[in-house]
């Protein structure tokens, strides 16, 4: 799954939804692969308002990527900044978590990722 997807996902347990610790999920034993994807500037600009920047900074650091700036760029800044575009593209669109786990910071539940597909199904006592 793309790192972008991770920015859209919190813990599936209902009682965790109100806790800020349930998002973002923390990758554990993550095996990363890189896909070659053509850079799509229009897409990145469109995605920008939907990205939770603080969560992305956390994820980026946890996966060993360089620290992102504290504030997200505006759409104009992003369009003018070729390096930022490239960095965000590499992080969000090209980097994939292929194997590993995603851990909720609130309840500690671990969601397995196998062959790039994460499993968010919950056992009955958590539904």
């Amino acid at each position, binding site marked *: *799954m*793309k790192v*972008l*997807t991770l920015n*859209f*996902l*919190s*813990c*599936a*347990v*209902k009682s965790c939804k109100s806790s800020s610790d349930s*998002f973002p999920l923390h990758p554990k034993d993550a095996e990363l692969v890189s*896909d070659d*994807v*053509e850079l*799509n500037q*229009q*897409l990145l*600009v*469109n*995605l920008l*308002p*939907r990205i*939770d920047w603080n969560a992305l900074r956390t994820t980026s650091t946890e996966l060993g990527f360089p620290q992102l700036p504290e504030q997200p760029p505006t759409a104009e800044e992003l369009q003018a900044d070729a390096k930022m575009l490239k960095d965000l593209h590499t992080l969000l669109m090209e980097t994939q978590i292929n194997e590993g786990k995603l851990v909720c910071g609130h309840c500690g539940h*671990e*969601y*397995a990722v*196998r*062959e*790039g*597909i*994460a*499993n*968010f*199904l*919950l*056992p*009955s*006592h958590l*539904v």
Partner: protein
Amino acid sequence: MNYLIRFSQSHETFRLPEIQSLALIEGIDMKVIFYSLESPFCVVNLPSPDAAARLIRRSILAMSIHELWGSGPDLSAVHAAVQATTRHLWSRYMICSFKFTIDSYQGSRSAEDKVRIINSFAYLGFAGPIQMRRPDEEFILFEDWEFNSTPLGIPDPKYYYFGRYLASGARDLPKKLDLKKRRYISTTSMDAELALVTANLVLAVPGKVIYDPFVGTGSFPIACAQFGALTFGSDIDGRSIRGDEKKRTLRANFEQYGLLAGLGGMFTADLTNSPIRRAELRYDGDGVTGRLFDGIVCDPPYGVREGLRVLGVRDPEKCPWVIPKGKEMYKNPDFIPPRKPYSFLAMLDSILQFSAQTLVDNGRLSFWMPTANDQNQEIPVPKHPYLEIVSVCTQTFNKWSRRLITYRRIPDREVDQEAMKAREEMKPVGKTADELNPFRKAYFSKFEPVDGGFNDAP
């Protein structure tokens, strides 16, 4: 100027919503002058020939578009209209190569008749070479005949349209995405033509983000990715996404069509316990927080070919050991969480609520739902105060039909707060699949009339 759209005479109720969606996508101001479900001809007003070509370039149900030079109930009316309104255009086509054809809908003409009719346009004075293959310009006389006109011996069509060919739709795309040639499909894969129409209705364009919560083998995401969107999907049954984990997988389908750039992420999840982050609905939201998707598209399971299930235990009192056992076992990688049957109507409601929370303003939800054709058993179109119905398209089978319903997420401040307060949580009762799903019950009882019908069902 007016333009003539030549539709295919199939999926009639989908044609106008598709063209209107395309006008929105292309930012074209379109006025519909004439449209009828019984006719493949539609007259629209558009700002330019260029806009006309853009309008239908990705249409699945429109075959072609033409600059309309004249129309009428008989040939003399067509000639009068052409002479009265297009005289200034004739000189442009004096020397180019051209061809003249007749397209008879539900009728036919003998070769001599065709030549005679074509020659009646001689006053146009085109002096260029006539070229049957790849002419510079093509002029077509469309004839709209009564149904069954040949055996009934009807001599003339009921209406004529005459126009200059401009552009064709995207009727080759369904062939490209044809299920018969797709590497990986299942019993419930949506056929390519209707999946592409759905992608048009949900306004899938490059740079937009589309989500399918019942992704299966990926028919909708593939269609949306074909139009350049970035797609996400989930399914409660991860096996449908993984396939055989070799050549037949959802990802392999994207690879087959060279659409990998449009594959955002696929994961296993249940819509009623979705991991997708979202904010509670408000009347004064910032319009940004939690608004992840430009479009949501799905064909939820009806419980006929595919069971409708969500996470949970059907009858915890009857099998009290299931929950503690799950507690013990759930960390085992092979553990499959228990699932229980779920109400179809409650599921539709969950889809609407989820969409209201996660769609951007003016983002669209398009989903398929079945209903019985018998009015007593008909399932009403579900409503939500945050979602405005854009179109309802129907594909009819023998005793039932399925509808493609499209909604628009309206901005928070336009929401009817009273309606939202009045909206009661649907409380499904019953435990078996039949009790929960009136459509399934009616389907398997062959839509025999029942007392009460759907409206009294949970």
